[in-house]
């Protein structure tokens, strides 16, 4: 046994001990990876430069200042075909944000209702909600987008046979046209009042919470808040002398003039994304609520809380902790899926960027802009939701 101790390590032994030394091996493999990545990266870079030079494409982001020369059907900021490529991409970005925000709000709302419905004791409601989830979860979202676009919105009437809805709203195969509000002098009072209302509500909520902790008396924060947030801007509206007129859409023979129009592409994309994501959100909500132990609601009933208070004060706050992380990824999925608008010609970020790419041939630059923006949206959303999650997370002793 002692023989091993006295034998001096031979040269081969030293080498072998290096091979089996985890530290040495770790460094070796990392170096190997690094070298491989650098070599492959250099090879790709070299090829790209050569290919670009061969096709005579100038590199750099200067093309963003060039004239775009294509029209965009729906722009939130002034845009014409004389605007720059940079502005075209920005218009696309704003449209992505628009459809994502509306989609997220609707999907959350529908998802909550369907998710709670699946847990309902009412057999019919639970079954209907299950059918909804199982249908929408198992069909590609692109197909749902086409379904709305081709199947439903295509069957809307021509402009001259527009369906006239109340308040001068018209529905036809060119989209939904509704009166555009024109704000007159003194309209700035209204957003100001809105901000004051929101701040005042926050102050009231804080005071009400402190009073409840101190004295146990409750205060109708929600009612007061609604009063402040809705009432103050309304008073400001009256005080400024109702500075609001409408630009009504007028049905012509071939087109509607005036008013604001929502493209059918937007409606199709918005409906498809909302309904598709809602089926996933419903499952997230259901899992979250089922994740709260039954003892919690039993204890709450034992304390004499009403069912509605049990749900609002005991179940939902605990379920939210389970719900928030997967809900975040659903929101991100919806935002990323909005890029499918390109398939039906809705001018969102992906669509305007790829049009730019096709016109200028600046593949590397255009794709890098697009990837950066999507990554930035993803990272910003994750950071916000992580902060929110940390705020909601269980504070343990």
């Amino acid at each position, binding site marked *: 046994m002692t023989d091993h101790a006295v034998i001096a390590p031979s040269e081969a032994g030293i080498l072998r001990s290096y091979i089996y030394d985890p530290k040495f091996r*770790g460094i070796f*493999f*990392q*170096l190997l*990876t*690094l070298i491989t*990545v650098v070599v492959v990266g250099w090879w*790709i870079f070299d*090829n*790209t430069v*050569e*290919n*670009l030079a*061969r096709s005579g494409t100038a590199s750099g982001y200067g093309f963003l200042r060039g004239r775009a020369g294509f029209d965009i059907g729906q722009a939130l900021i002034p845009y014409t075909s004389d605007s720059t490529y940079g502005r075209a991409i920005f218009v696309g970005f704003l449209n992505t944000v628009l459809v994502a925000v509306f989609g997220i709000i609707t999907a959350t709302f529908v998802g909550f209702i369907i998710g709670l419905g699946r847990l*309902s*004791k*009412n*057999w*019919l*409601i639970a079954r*209907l909600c299950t059918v909804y989830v*199982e*249908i929408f*979860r*198992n*069909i*590609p*979202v*692109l*197909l*749902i987008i*086409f*379904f709305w676009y*081709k*199947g439903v919105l*295509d*069957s809307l009437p021509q402009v001259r046979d527009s369906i006239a809805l109340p308040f001068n709203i018209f529905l036809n195969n060119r989209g939904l046209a509704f009166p555009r509000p024109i704000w007159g002098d003194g309209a700035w009072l209204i957003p100001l009042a809105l901000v004051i209302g929101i701040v005042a509500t926050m102050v009231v909520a804080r005071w009400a919470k402190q009073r409840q902790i101190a004295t146990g008396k409750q205060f109708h924060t929600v009612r007061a808040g609604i009063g402040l947030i809705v009432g103050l801007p309304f008073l400001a509206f009256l005080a400024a002398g109702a500075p609001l007129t409408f630009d009504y859409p007028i049905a012509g023979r071939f087109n509607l003039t005036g008013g604001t129009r929502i493209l059918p592409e937007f409606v199709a994309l918005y409906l498809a994304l909302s309904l598709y994501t809602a089926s996933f959100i419903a499952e997230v909500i259901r899992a979250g609520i089922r994740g709260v132990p039954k003892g919690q609601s039993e204890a709450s009933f034992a304390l004499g809380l009403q069912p509605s208070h049990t749900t609002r004060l005991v179940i939902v706050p605990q379920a939210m902790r389970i719900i928030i992380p997967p809900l975040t990824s659903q929101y991100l999925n919806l935002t*990323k*899926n909005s*890029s*499918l608008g*390109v*398939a039906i010609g809705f001018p969102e970020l*992906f669509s305007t960027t*790829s049009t730019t*790419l096709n016109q200028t041939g600046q*593949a*590397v630059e255009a*794709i890098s802009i*697009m*990837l950066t923006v*999507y*990554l930035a949206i*993803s*990272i910003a959303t994750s950071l916000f939701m992580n902060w929110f999650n940390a705020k909601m997370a269980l504070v343990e002793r």
Partner: protein
Amino acid sequence: MNPKNLAYIRTEMLGPEPAPLSTKTISGWIRANLLATPKDTALTVIAAALLLWTVPGMLEWLFFDAVWSGSDRSVCTTIVQGGIQPDGWKGACWAFVGDRFQQFMFGRYPLDERWRPMLVAILFVALLVPMLIPKVPRKGLNALLFFVVFPIVAFFLLHGNIFGLREVETPLWGGLMVTLILSFVGIAVSLPVGILLALGRRSNMPVIRIFCVGFIEIIRGVPLISVLFMANVMLPLFLPTGWTIDNFLRALVGVAIFASAYMAEVIRGGLQAIPKGQSEGADSLGLSYWQKMRLIILPQAVKLVIPGIVNTFIGLFKDTSLVSIIGMFDLLGIVRLNFTDTTWITPVTPITGLIFAGFIFWLFCFGMSRYSAFMERHLDTSHTR
């Protein structure tokens, strides 16, 4: 303190309550599940009204008023539109689906060569079914045949240009065949690559960890369509001049990269759930890193996340439909291609075709999710309370 003076203490006995209503009978079941409270009753009435309002119309459109046979657009159009149906007719045009069924399955694959994809499909089913049934023995051999031998055989059978088979270029491939090939390759590549990426992300070598985290987060942060687009536009730029990559292969690369990143995160969830003692136990037995992972950690981790893995497969299967945007004709792409075909251009063709494609996608995805639920129960060795 005389308890008799306290107002809240009952002094007389309560009368007997009537027996509770039975919930075993049909009327009892209805009372308990549909009409329990006034709110429930109202909801039931609203839901029933909604069903009565939509379902009969839907059934009429889908089945009773639908056209089941015919060879061109005239059977699915009204007289005004140049067809044979009475004015105001509306219904599904299944004749269109029947006429184009072969195309929806195989795309533009040459007619007299279609026995080849059929043979591949039969091989696929013959290898898949024993793979899915837990009782069938020799899973290792089966997996080897399915994931290694079958793809090679299938490639040569489909592509040809060998053993006297005629060459069929990939642009001619299409329909459900392409959807299935893309998903199969995506699944077969993403599982091993995803496992490697997940291990890399949890490695204690910083360089490898950084590369894995970067790859996973970047791919997961951008939409699939941009990854496909990148594979389509950038891949030719990355390669030396003169090298060309088949369009189909580009889409495969894009799908595989995307699926791997998502799979890596699912596997990581499983790895994180394995207690540290397992890893320490393996170390103390003197197992090497790969032995430890292969024999101790991964079998437990993968079993834990089977639902997540199947969900990724389902997502991948649905996402293959995006290749139709970059100009390939998968099931959705080929259905859309037919919207502009003058033989079948009618107001009801697009929606009929989409419903058909949706049903096929639904069938596969729903099947996968049911199988995953079955597997979860089958593999559940935990001591249930």
